[in-house]
């Protein structure tokens, strides 16, 4: 699932995080990034807040009469 950064990541030193630098950079740029359970657990332990980007559920097309 993709997530966007809310707060706290800019205070962490990327070198000390297990989450890849590329993901951290993109989160800080405001992009939606796919995060694993491990990434989320690491962020939670540091109080870094991210929010999931909800996927739009496509409504089934009505059959044309």
């Amino acid at each position, binding site marked *: 699932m993709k997530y966007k950064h809310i707060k706290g990541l800019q205070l*962490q030193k990327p070198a000390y995080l297990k989450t890849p630098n590329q993901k951290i950079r993109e989160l800080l740029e405001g992009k939606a990034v796919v995060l694993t359970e491990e990434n989320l657990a690491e962020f939670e332990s540091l109080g*870094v807040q991210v929010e999931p980007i909800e996927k739009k559920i496509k409504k089934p097309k009505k059959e044309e009469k």
Partner: protein
Amino acid sequence: MAKVYGKSQYAIGIKQKSGSAFATAAQTDTAYQLLPVINVSSPVLNLVESGEIRSNNAGMIETDFDQFRTRKGGFVTLDFEVPAEREGIVRLLTSVLQDHSESGAGPYVHTIEASSSAALSRPDFDATSSAGVPSLFDIALYGPATAEDKLMTSAALQSLTMNFDMSDGRCLLSGTFYSGFASSTGFLVGQTLTGGTVAGTPNLMYTAPTQIESYFDTKTLDIGGSATNAVITGVSFTFENNLARVGRDANGDAENYAFGIPSVNITGEISLMYDDNFNDGASNVIQDFLDGTPATLILQQGDGTISSAGELNITAEIYSTAVNYDLNADTGAIITIPFKVVQPTSSGAPSGTAFKFEYCDNKSNSAW
């Protein structure tokens, strides 16, 4: 030829201990954590000494048996300066103010506060510590070879300066540890410390030793009672608690420590730009200074909510003791205000916050 040693062959380790072990001598175990000093200083043993020429000495030079020196009643100090690290700053501030509360379970939110609702209280240094208070440390100086290590027993911080140094870029902490254990069983020399993961050296306080930078997201100082944004070029706080040894046991070591007698003093200095907000206008810093009006200083790293590791809030009620100018600074005119922190009052009663330090990190004080 004699071997020459360098500073990199020495290290200082500190280990938090409960007040219940106040009289227990420091041990040579693996629990010491690196105090990340840049320059290592050695503990200074202050002994009780005297020596006066006695009568019946026609030579007028003091004799050797005129001299008196004892370790009983002495004390040991250790000066240090370290870059503030995320998982260390709270421990040091806790020790100098002997106040600490903690919430959360990772990240942890630490609060050290002197206010009308949470006034500082004098700790009982030989009582069991709760939330890290009383805050005591055994301190180890790791020497360059076996049997050359030193140990200080039950030290606490006597003074601490927290300097947000804009030129260095980091928050620097300097101060003095004080131990009332100067006997041969309290201040131990010729020891062989076990060392941590690396033999002969203490472990890191934290494996991700993030240094605290000198910047603030929010930085306001009251002008005429209104919080006003300031361009700060430097700010520092100095905490002094007048820690002193009390009593003398069979070894001549301290039986307790006096703290905050007569007072705990928090002073500091802030330098800010002479600008549209802070200037010599009719209702500005000079008038506030002449009026003797305390002002609230707020410094924050982060958004102020203290919920992510690394977020910091400092709130201080400051009473300026002078207003100095450097109108020739390379970066523009600067106003420097030395201050002392005071407890605000309302109708004669303490009301509000004198000093509050809040910090979020990833380390519990109780498990430190």
